[in-house]
């Protein structure tokens, strides 16, 4: 287990001092808008697969709060990780390392949005959903960002739970409880996360090493990482079909999950086969890119089946 000492962003010489406050888009960038979009999407699917009814305005406000809560946790993550963001090309242009927003401003922004989103979700929907959102924020900002990310190669395996929780929150909004449907969606995102991020980590291993983040390729080596990518993908492909077996995934979903799962396994085998040079990079980035498409397709199929009357049961 590798341990990396964190230096608080405000005390890191690599982060330039910000001037008098950032521009409005800089604050929006702190919320990781692309992650927010994914969270809205997966939480919405968690809502529609639930057997229940929610007042549309309450549902909309709840989704908004889940998105803001996710954005707030992203903001707190950027505050904490500003020192390592500054040394990675992928993240160096983020508002804090680029000197556009001061770390203390980002911290205050993230904390206010965290508390606000949880309270409003509790008032709008129910306190189970609010509690789950609070847990997600704390898990991502504290457990993952402050602890796991810099100490263990299992960082994104365990930390993936935070990204997998939005469908569970969505179901809690609609039903006031947590059911098997959202837990299966949680499991799919949870198992999907390691091969997705490790594919990227294979390509960016040098940057992660420079930043001192113990990603799997840096600690266990690329060979072990490739084998683990295949193992997780072999687990993911049949798990993707679980909604069909449980009756809330229909024929369209079954086809998407089957073909997508097979393609994921094929991409992971390409990652295992190509170990050097440009071919290695192409295989890893192919796996990374397709994994996004795969998850998007699975959730889109569920959404389409439940929302547009396209559901045709596969198992009677």
């Amino acid at each position: 287990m590798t341990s990396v000492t964190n230096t608080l962003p405000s005390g890191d010489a690599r982060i330039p001092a910000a001037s008098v406050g950032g521009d409005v888009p800089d604050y929006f960038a702190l919320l990781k808008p692309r992650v927010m979009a994914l969270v809205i999407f997966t939480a919405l699917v968690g809502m529609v697969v639930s057997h229940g009814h929610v007042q549309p305005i309450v549902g909309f406000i709840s989704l908004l709060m889940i998105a803001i809560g996710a954005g707030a946790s992203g903001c707190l993550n950027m505050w904490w990780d500003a020192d390592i963001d500054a040394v990675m090309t992928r993240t160096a242009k983020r508002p804090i390392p680029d000197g556009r927003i001061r770390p203390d401003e980002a911290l205050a922004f993230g904390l206010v949005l965290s508390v606000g989103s949880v309270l409003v979700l509790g008032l709008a929907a129910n306190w189970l959903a609010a509690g789950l959102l609070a847990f997600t924020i704390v898990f991502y900002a504290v457990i993952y960002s402050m602890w796991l990310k810099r100490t263990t190669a299992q960082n994104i395996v365990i930390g993936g739970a935070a990204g997998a929780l939005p469908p569970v929150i969505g179901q809690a909004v609609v039903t006031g409880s947590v059911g098997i449907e959202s837990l299966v969606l949680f499991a799919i995102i949870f198992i999907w996360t390691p091969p997705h991020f490790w594919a990227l980590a294979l390509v960016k291993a040098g940057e992660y090493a420079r930043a001192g983040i113990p990603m799997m390729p840096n600690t266990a080596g690329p060979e072990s990482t490739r084998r683990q990518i295949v193992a997780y993908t072999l687990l993911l492909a049949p798990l993707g079909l679980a909604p069909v077996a449980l009756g809330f995934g229909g024929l369209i979903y079954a086809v998407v999950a089957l073909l997508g799962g097979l393609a994921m396994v094929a991409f992971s085998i390409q990652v295992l086969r190509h170990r050097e040079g440009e071919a290695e990079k192409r295989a890893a980035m192919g796996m990374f890119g397709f994994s996004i498409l795969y998850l998007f397709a699975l959730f889109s199929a569920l959404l389409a089946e439940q929302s547009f009357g396209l559901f045709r049961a596969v198992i009677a």
Partner: protein
Amino acid sequence: MNGAPDRARIEGGERPEPPRYPALTPDEERRRRKRSIAIALALGAMVVLFFVLTIAKLGPQVLNRPL
């Protein structure tokens, strides 16, 4: 720290000098103005959100009552 001299001046009837802030550049002034507008809009949106949420939770019948 200049707390003690300030207190002494106040007790002696002198007003402490107001803090001096560096002058903002035009770009900083523009950014501050945009931030202020964004905060105002966010506060307005929150008022609307709480009103709509209250009506949605209570139901439309809350407005239908004898005067």
